C-alpha cells in the first residue's frame, strides 16, 4: 500500500490525544506514570514533551482521588483523559466511576455534563496472573451511564479515541495489552494497521464486519476479533465461511448488526476473553435469541474465559484463554449439524 502508515494502537491513541489537545485546550491527561514515562503501555508517549506538566500530569497512586477529580474537572468544562493503569484496579475506585462519572449527568437531569475518557488496559496471555490480566468488559458494560469501547486495531483505536474525546459523555476506553504494540508484551501483528494522519472519528456504537461470511457469525471484541479472524481462515479451508463481527463498542451495543449477521448465517459463536458467566457472551446470545430462535441452525455457542481467577502458570493460563482452535472446533461442530439442534 502506498503511503502506508502503520501504527501501533499505543501510537494511534497518543496521536488522537495529541491532535485533540492541539485543538481543544480543555483536554488534559492524568494518571500514574503517564507523563515522563509516557504510560506503562506507551499510549501517552510524547504528550509531556509537547504539552507540558500542567496538561499531562502524573498522579499519586490514588485512583479514587484522581478519577473523582476528573469527574469534577469534566463537570467544570474540562475534558479529562484519565488512565486506570490496569482495569483490574477498578475495585479501588469504582465508586468514582460508576456512581459519579456515570450517573452525574442523569442525577443532574442533564445540567451537568461529564465529558471524560477513562482509558484502561485489559487482557492477559503473558502470565501476569489474576490481578493484572482481566478484561472485565461485562463489569463496565453492565452499569448504565458510561459508553464502553475497545478497539481491535490501530485505525479504530485512533478513530474511537477521537470520538471519545469529543463525546459529551464519559467513555471507558479499554485497550488490550496484547494488541498495544509494545514489544515487551508481545503483540498481535494484525492490530498494527494503516492510520491516516489527519483526525477522524469512528462512531461509538457501530460494530464492524471484520470479515464477511455466510455459515457462521463469530462475534467478538478486541483480541477476540483476531482469534476469530484466524479461526475464519482455518475454517475457510474446511469450506466453512465465517463472518466476523467486531463489536468495537459494548455500550451502546450494535444489536442490529449482530442480529443481521446471525440472521444471515443462522449460527452464532461469541468469543469473549472476559469471564464466562453474567457477561458479554450471555448478553450477545440473549440479544440474538430474544428476537427469534426459529432461524437458528444450531444452538449459539460461547468461547469465553472460564469462571476462575486467571492463573499465573503459562500452561494453565493458555488452557483457559479463548483461541482460534477452540473457535474452529466449535464452528465445525455447529456447521456439521444440518437441522436445528
Amino acid at each position, binding site marked *: 500500500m502506498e503511503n502506508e502508515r502503520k501504527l501501533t494502537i499505543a501510537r494511534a491513541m497518543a496521536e488522537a490525544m495529541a491532535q485533540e489537545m492541539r485543538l481543544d485546550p480543555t483536554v488534559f491527561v492524568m494518571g500514574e506514570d503517564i507523563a515522563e514515562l509516557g504510560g506503562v503501555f506507551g499510549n501517552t508517549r510524547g504528550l509531556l514533551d509537547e504539552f507540558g506538566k500542567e496538561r499531562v500530569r502524573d*498522579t499519586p497512586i490514588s485512583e479514587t482521588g484522581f478519577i473523582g*477529580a476528573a469527574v*469534577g474537572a469534566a463537570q467544570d468544562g474540562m475534558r479529562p483523559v484519565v488512565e486506570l493503569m490496569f482495569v483490574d484496579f477498578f475495585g479501588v475506585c469504582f465508586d468514582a466511576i460508576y456512581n459519579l462519572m456515570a450517573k452525574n449527568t*442523569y442525577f443532574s437531569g442533564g*445540567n451537568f455534563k461529564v*465529558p471524560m475518557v477513562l482509558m484502561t488496559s485489559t487482557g492477559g496471555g503473558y502470565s501476569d496472573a489474576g490481578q493484572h490480566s482481566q478484561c472485565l468488559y461485562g463489569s463496565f458494560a453492565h452499569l448504565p451511564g458510561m459508553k464502553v469501547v475497545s478497539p481491535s486495531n490501530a485505525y479504530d483505536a485512533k478513530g474511537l479515541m477521537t470520538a471519545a474525546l469529543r463525546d459529551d459523555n464519559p467513555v471507558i476506553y479499554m485497550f488490550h495489552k496484547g494488541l498495544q504494540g509494545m514489544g515487551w508484551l508481545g503483540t498481535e501483528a494484525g492490530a498494527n494497521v494503516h492510520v491516516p494522519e489527519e483526525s477522524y472519528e469512528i462512531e461509538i456504537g457501530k460494530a464492524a464486519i471484520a470479515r464477511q461470511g455466510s455459515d457462521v457469525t463469530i462475534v467478538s471484541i478486541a483480541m477476540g476479533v483476531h482469534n476469530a479472524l484466524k479461526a475464519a481462515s482455518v475454517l475457510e479451508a474446511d469450506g466453512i465461511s465465517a463472518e466476523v463481527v467486531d463489536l468495537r463498542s459494548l455500550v451502546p451495543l450494535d444489536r442490529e448488526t449482530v442480529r443481521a449477521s446471525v440472521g444471515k448465517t443462522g449460527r452464532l459463536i461469541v468469543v469473549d476473553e472476559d469471564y464466562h458467566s453474567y457477561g458479554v457472551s450471555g448478553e450477545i446470545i440473549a440479544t440474538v435469541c430474544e428476537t427469534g430462535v426459529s432461524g437458528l441452525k444450531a444452538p449459539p455457542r460461547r468461547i469465553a474465559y472460564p469462571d476462575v481467577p486467571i492463573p499465573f502458570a503459562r500452561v494453565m493460563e493458555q488452557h483457559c484463554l479463548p483461541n482460534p482452535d477452540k473457535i474452529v472446533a466449535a464452528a465445525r461442530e455447529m456447521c456439521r449439524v444440518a437441522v436445528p439442534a
Partner: protein
Amino acid sequence: MQPTKAELGWMYRTMVISRRFENAIEKIYMEGKSPVFNMADGPIPGEMHLSDGQEPVAVGVCAHLKPEDIVTATHRPHHQAIAKGVDLKKMAAEIFGKASGLSGGRGGHMHLFDADVNFACSGIIAQGMGPAAGGALSRKLQGKPGVAVSFIGEGAANQGAFHETMNLAALWKLPMICVIEDNAWGISVAKSAATSVQKNHVRAASYGIPGHYISDNDPWKIYEVAGEAIERARAGEGPTLIEIETYRLAGHFMGDAEGYRPEGEKDDLFARDPIPAMRQRLLDEATFNAADLDQMESEAQSGVDEAIQFARESADPAPEDALTAVFA
C-alpha cells in the same frame, strides 16, 4: 476577619430559611406515612436526612463563596444547598420528585445538582471530595477564579477518598477547602467509636496543610476561619482542612428512633440550638433589633412557603422520562 452587618444579616436569614425549609419538609414528609411509617409513601418518599442544627457551618462557609465557586455536598445537603444559593423552588420540587425540580425528579434529596451555582452532591460517603478537587484543578488549569469546598461529615473522614483527595489537593496546591461537619454521629456510631483521634483537624499534618477545629457551632468563628482558608486558597496557597463542631438536632434520617443517643443529649443540644443563640447574640451586640430579625424570619418563611407551594403544585414527571438524560 469578621462578618459585616450585611453578612450577619445574610447568615441569620439563610439559617432561618434552611430551618424553616426543613421544618416544612419534615411535616410534609410525614404526610401519608401514618399510622404506618413507610418510606415509600407520601408526597416525599425515600430517605430524608435533615440538617437542623448544622446551619452555622453552611452559612459561615458559604458567606465567602460566589456562584462561580464550587461546592460538593453529601447525603445531608439542604443547608449547604440553600447557603450556596441553589434555587429554592427547584430544589423543593426536586425533593418532591417533580418535573420542575433541579433534575426533573431524577435525583431527589440526596442528589441536588445546580449547575448555575456549581453545586453537586453524592450520597456515597466522602465521594464528593474527588470532584471538588477536580473542580479546583479545572480552575487552576483554566486560569479561572474560584475555589471548591467539599463538605463532609466527621464519619467520612475515615473513608479512603478523604485521604486520597487531601493528599492530591495538597500536592497540587489546589484551591480547595475540606469542611468537616462534626455532629458527633455517623448514623448510630459515635465519633469516638469510629475515629482514632479526637479531632480530625490534626489530620492536616498528613498533608502538610493548615488544619483548624472550631467548637460550639459558632457562626462568627466559622466565618472567620473559613474566610481565612478561602482567602488562602484564592491566593494560590493551597487547601485547608477545617473541622467544625456542630449539632445534629434530628435523627440520622427521618424514622430514626435515636435509641443510641445518651440520655439527655437531645435536650442539651436543643438548649444550644444555634438559631436562637445567633438571634440572641445579634440582639445583645445590637447588630440588629428584634423587628429586623422578625422581619428576616417572616421573609424567610414566605420564601419557603413559596418554594413548597411551587413544589406541591408542580406536575409529576412523565414516567417514561426516566429513560432520558442518561447521556448528554
